[in-house]
């Protein structure tokens, strides 16, 4: 072997070794795009959450005897009334609308506290039946409800509801469920949850859960505003068709006809509208299909819901990132109004 070829060989040898080391280092580095996807994109976070829930289902926190005693002591006492609670998403912040999301730990703590305080969870269907003169509500009733039919809410809430032995209501945007992606749950998922008996699937419009540009340039909820050039009669037909579509879709997939409705964005025509006649028309159209309808307006004055109130304007408490005891205090305040 000549000197030159030996040099060339050793240079090649070094290059091979360097290549081998880079290859070994690149192996763990190649995971980084997956990490970026799983933590940096909304759908990636949902994928992560799905895996997390599958591997380690969320559980209710175990309350100490002191905490249980405190919850019992703080529990309000009422009959023939129901506290209406409104949630949107649960998770680590994969929220397309911004806000409206609480952590699974918080939700678990709230459920555990409600359970310790002896509150009874009821569904929107039970509320509708009781208010229409049917089977009365249990004492200390709360209605846990979620808007939009979000995947994350079902994913986290379901195992914890099962553990607490509670039921909840999901107001589904049926157009989104038919066209789901990852943010909204699909019909097969909703049917699966409904068949567990823990979920009451109700209506949240078919395709009118969005804002629209109106004639004066404002953006208003599609359900409570006239499009540029739209007449009141055309508006009525647009709403009627949409609500009928939503009910038909729920009936077709889940098998039960919805009896309850939640106004998108909590808007029912009193404000965020561009025509004073809308409130009345919307009320008629909602009343034609549903026994009860819910919104969430002035949050500081929410009372308990009772049969003698307007069944088509029942007021829900929008739940924030509160502790269980804070939630109980809110319910107590409502019970004393």
């Amino acid at each position, binding site marked *: 072997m000549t000197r030159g070829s030996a040099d060339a060989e050793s240079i090649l040898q070094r290059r091979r070794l360097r290549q081998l080391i880079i290859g070994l280092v690149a*192996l763990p580095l190649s995971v980084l795009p997956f990490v970026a996807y799983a933590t940096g994109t909304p759908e990636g976070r949902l994928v992560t959450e799905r895996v997390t829930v599958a591997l380690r289902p969320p559980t209710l926190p175990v309350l100490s005897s002191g905490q249980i005693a405190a919850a019992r002591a703080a529990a309000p006492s009422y009959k023939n009334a129901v506290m209406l609670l409104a949630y949107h998403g649960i998770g680590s912040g994969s929220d397309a609308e911004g806000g409206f999301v609480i952590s699974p730990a918080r939700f678990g703590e709230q459920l555990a506290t409600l359970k310790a305080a002896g509150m009874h969870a009821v569904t929107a269907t039970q509320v509708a039946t009781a208010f229409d003169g049917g089977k009365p509500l249990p004492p200390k009733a709360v209605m846990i409800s979620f808007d939009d039919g979000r995947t994350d809410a079902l994913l986290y809430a379901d195992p914890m509801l099962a553990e607490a032995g509670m039921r909840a209501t999901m107001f589904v945007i049926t157009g989104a469920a038919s066209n789901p992606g990852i943010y909204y749950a699909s019909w097969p998922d909703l049917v699966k949850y409904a068949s567990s008996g823990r979920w009451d699937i109700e209506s949240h419009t078919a395709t009118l859960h969005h804002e629209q540009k109106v004639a004066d340039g404002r953006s208003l909820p599609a359900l409570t505003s006239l499009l540029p050039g739209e007449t009141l009669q055309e508006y009525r037909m647009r709403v009627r068709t949409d609500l009928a579509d939503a009910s038909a879709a729920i009936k077709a997939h889940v098998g039960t006809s919805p009896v309850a409705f939640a106004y998108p964005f909590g808007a029912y025509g009193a404000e965020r509208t561009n025509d004073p006649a809308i409130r009345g028309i919307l009320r008629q159209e909602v009343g034609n299909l549903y026994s009860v309808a819910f919104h969430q307006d002035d949050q500081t004055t929410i009372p308990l819901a009772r049969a003698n109130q307007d069944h088509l304007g029942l007021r829900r408490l929008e739940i924030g990132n509160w502790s269980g005891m804070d939630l109980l205090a809110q319910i107590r305040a409502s019970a004393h109004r």
Partner: protein
Amino acid sequence: MIDPRTASGDLASPWKGLTELLSPTDIAASSSRRSPPRWLIALLSIVLKVLIALYAIAIFGFIWVTKDLTFASLTRDPLFAAYSIAVVFYVLGRFAIAAFYRPVPDLGHRPTVSIIIPAFNEEEGIIGTIQSCLHVDYPSELVEVIAINDGSTDGTWQAMTRAYEDSSRLHAIDLGRNYGKRGAMAEGIRRATGEILCFVDSDSYLKPDALTAIVQPFTDPRVGAVVGHAEVHNRMANWITKMQQVRYYSAFRVIKATESVLSGTVTCASGCCAAYRRDVIMPLLPGWEFQTFLGRPATFGDDRSITNRILANHRVVYQSTSEAETVAPTTLTVFLRQQLRWKKSWLRESLYVLRYFWRKNPLAALFTYASIAFPFMAPFVVLHAVGGRIVAGSFSGLWFYLIGTYSMALLYSLFYAFKRPDGMWYHGMTFVAIYMSVLVFQTYWGIFTMRDTRWGTRASTVEHAHIDQEMVTDLRSTAALDLLAVPA
């Protein structure tokens, strides 16, 4: 007799390379350096392989978890979602079937073989190629090496005559003018006397045991052609050759292996190392030598074209133990030109494939028709997935598309990492990146420039012509053996 490679399995042989790599070959230096013990290397390699396998399983898990996302988008974006699902099944299906691939062991079959090397302006590499063919580990009385000079303008013929003077076993032919690769190959075939004809490109090198390995599948009378396994000879040159090395590996070890498993339906017996049964190729010779397409002589894609004609009535299989090395382009321009040339011959030959492949193994037909359909859809899918979403400002689907593509690229590259411990695996990602950004658009570019039959990497364009025998110089030693005289 069992080939030791097959007996020890595919696992052992590549790791031998690592041992050689870590133990210095420079004798002067070896006294000062000690190579790590063999058992340590073996242990490390097993640990690394297990980690790579677990990593690949995790990626499968990721694909499984996100499958809802893809299925969910079926209603919103049916074409795109259907394409994504089909591609995932196609890629994973190929891997799954390739896992069943086994090379034919050495059955002791030793037919007479003519190694044919057509050359055009290869004065630098031709000697090495001829030497690698002359030194194959095969009974010398059963092999002839035929080198054909296709009117080179450099010193190729001088190099061939020198090699001829050194070895009586070389049969050197000068055509006297340039006829193109097909003409040179055809003349080589006509003058060959072996039962099996083995083609080696003038920039390729046979491993010593490649010839023994490549003839073994011919023990099956249905087999008309066999393609060997090609690696990139100059793979250490730069990132372009490293990327091609990883690409070659999966193209052979996954794609050709799958086709081979499915009733011997390899669609291209690549020119760098392929063997044909003489009886099968002879009747096809005239049609192949003077093939025209769109009124132009079909100058390239000779390998795919002859494979296609053989495949219509015979099996074409892949033999992984028959290893050759080929020189790959070192610049991006030449690489892209080569890819375009391959694309054009692929386009042309796909038209024939469409007509008869349905008669073959149904699964092979499914894969082949899919492999023809995908490249036509791919540019639209890429533009739709990336361009469409950027214009619409909705990035969520874009991230999903990118991570999906990344997963597939990573699976391909990890396969290489698992098989080859040379650290080059991640260049497979580079290949996929170039594929997705440039190569997918070559399908249509190839259609538009179909009539441009320039070679691209070879400064020669010629019309078809019959070989003028008056101009041919045939150097053939009287000592050279006539293979036809060898008793069967």
